[in-house]
């Protein structure tokens, strides 16, 4: 039995149909938690700091709760590095994993994003040093229509609900949520987790403080 904690942002419609039957192993159980950020939509650095805290609070106890992996289902990868620093189990995040995975399918990738994530994804592309491999981060149309620029994309990462994507594209379409769950299964199946050299543990864990901050922020 593999137990995966899936965290998704509460300000985005729940991904009810993200997992078609037969995608996960029969022994995989997914516990889905929706995470409310103190400031939404997360379009700037103020919001991102609060989103980091919210995701960290939502996942920081995952290991003691008996989970084998955590999936952060927000293309903004909020709290991802902090979660890695406090957890020994793998933390697979939608932004990082889907962009890297896209490069296993083609030479370059394009991202289709809503206004909610557009700036953040551009920042992450740069932070992950994938500027040369990213053909562009394109805004979805008002009704969720994929922009015409994606007709020429090698691979498309769909950073929004697939239900909203009304134009079909020739390129492989990477949907982050099912992907990160499969990658979490893969990492646990291989006994792999993140490197402590890249994500050193804190000298002093502040779990209680993080919980208290999260609770008080939600109550205000």
């Amino acid at each position, binding site marked *: 039995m593999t137990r995966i904690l899936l965290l998704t942002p509460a300000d985005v419609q729940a991904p009810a149909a993200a997992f078609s039957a037969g995608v996960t*192993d029969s022994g995989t159980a997914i516990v889905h938690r929706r995470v409310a950020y103190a400031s939404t939509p997360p379009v700037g650095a103020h919001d991102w700091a609060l989103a980091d805290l919210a995701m960290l609070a939502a996942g920081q106890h995952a290991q003691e709760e008996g989970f084998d992996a955590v999936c952060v289902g927000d293309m903004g990868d909020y709290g991802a590095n902090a979660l890695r620093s406090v957890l020994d189990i793998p933390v697979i995040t939608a932004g990082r994993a889907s962009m890297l995975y896209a490069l*296993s*399918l083609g030479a370059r990738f394009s991202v289709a994003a809503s206004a909610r994530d557009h700036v953040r994804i551009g920042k992450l592309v740069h932070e992950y040093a994938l500027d040369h491999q990213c053909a562009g981060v394109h805004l979805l149309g008002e009704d969720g229509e994929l922009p015409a620029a994606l007709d020429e994309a090698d691979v498309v990462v769909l950073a929004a609900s697939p239900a909203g994507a009304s134009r079909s594209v020739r390129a492989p379409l990477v949907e982050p949520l099912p992907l990160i769950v499969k990658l979490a299964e893969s990492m646990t199946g291989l006994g*792999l*987790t*993140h490197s402590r*050299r*890249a994500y050193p543990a804190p000298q002093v864990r502040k779990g209680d403080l993080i919980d208290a901050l999260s609770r008080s922020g939600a109550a205000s």
Partner: protein
Amino acid sequence: MARVLVIVPFPMDEGNVAKRRAQLNAVRLGEGIEFDYKPVRIAPANYVSQQDSVLADIGILEAGLQAQADGYDAVCIDTVSDSGMSALRSVLDIPVIGPGRHAMLAALMLGEKFSILAMWDRWRHLYTKTLAELGLQHKCASLRSAGLQPNNQSLLAGKEDEFFPALYEAAMRCVEEDGADVIILGSTTMHEAHAYLAERLPVPIINPGPLTYRLADAAIRLRLSHSRLSYPAPSHVAGGALAAMGAAAERI
């Protein structure tokens, strides 16, 4: 039942194929997927020069050309060189998983920089090629080898006492001197050393062959395959010529 063809990059007998198949023991897989191992007919003696790379590409292309027609759902290539991967992707619609490329991308899900640990320096050109294709040279902390002579048939059998500690020492230098967050085993032929190293190293170490089995499963279940724009189809497939080459190689 999903069926995956694993292409073994050297001609070999069933006993040595079993040493390749033993990579399945290093990964927990979901139900409903099975792996067939097929040695190539065309191959170089080993992978130490660009001549060898051309022969490897042809041999793996020839071995996998019919995989889709034969009912396979994915192909894994059992060499970190990813030889033949691009050629097969250009003719097949099913996923073709090369351990080199996939191990480097997976490593970046686990840390910021990776090192590739090889048996000997003669494999260096294999890694620089894939790093250049991915444009991820700046993410590679180092390419290091243990200065050991590999054997692509018997693998590490009988040499564990000498080889395992030497690989550990080289891996530790990747971590301590080069700043690697993650180590990638530089060859699927090194898989027998993975458990020994994983128990001892302070960083994750990727076993590239078993990784491809999991990623084949993921690609099949997610219905994802490579991009036609990145891997355009040929105007015609030279199936007859390649089969004739395979037959010719068997006679030599």
